[in-house]
């Protein structure tokens, strides 16, 4: 889609890359929820080999890593045309979605430390993108 014959102007391309990265963060966060669900269903003390096999054989884990792959491909597509310094902070939104989903899906507790931590990490990644 990024090799369309009609040339897009800069801002349209930038917007398209932005939306692509937002999709990528949503899919990436959904992937983490599936991976956590699948990993939680592993036995009490799985070996490394059992864990590796489960990644292919457990539907939730397999689906999670498939989504993870898709989100990585979307990110690469977005980065081909977008500006890295703008897209990197957007990409860090994955951390925000995963936190929200952890509370919504797994009923994990939220507290000021976790919130401050997430904000600091996202800001740190944004600084990294400015390089």
């Amino acid at each position, binding site marked *: 889609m990024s090799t369309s014959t009609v040339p897009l102007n800069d801002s349209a391309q930038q917007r398209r890359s932005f939306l692509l990265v937002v999709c990528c963060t949503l899919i990436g966060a959904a992937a983490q929820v599936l991976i956590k669900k699948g990993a939680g269903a592993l036995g009490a003390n799985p070996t490394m080999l059992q864990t590796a096999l489960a990644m292919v054989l457990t539907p939730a884990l397999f689906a999670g890593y498939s989504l993870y792959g898709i989100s990585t491909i979307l990110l690469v597509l977005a980065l081909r045309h977008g500006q890295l310094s703008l897209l990197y902070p957007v990409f860090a939104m994955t*951390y925000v979605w*995963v936190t929200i989903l952890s509370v919504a899906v797994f009923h*994990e507790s939220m507290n000021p*430390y*976790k*919130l401050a931590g997430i904000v*600091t990490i996202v800001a740190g990644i944004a600084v*990294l993108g400015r390089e």
Partner: protein
Amino acid sequence: MAWVMGASFFGSFGALFLKIGAGKLQRNLLSVITNWRLLLGIAFYLFSSVLFVFGVRRGELSVLYPMVALGSVWTLLWSWLILGEPLTRPKLVALGMILCGMALIGMGAR
């Protein structure tokens, strides 16, 4: 939590070898499948995901997932030590912020 941090450590070697391997790539399939650096990079990524699954099976996702950010700290270090990329002030600031964020989340863990 140690497993997830270990996963981020090995995952950063995945990135390092992919980077070194990609630099030596030519435009044919054979050069992709015989590129041991690239294959080693992929192997590191696979190993790192097994560790991640192992680590994430217990504990809170809202605590464990942010630990993945430690991977960018390792990657910054290897880029500086092995690839010779400059460690600029913004990079150091980002590194410090990511570590502080992780410490905060660790304090908020149940």
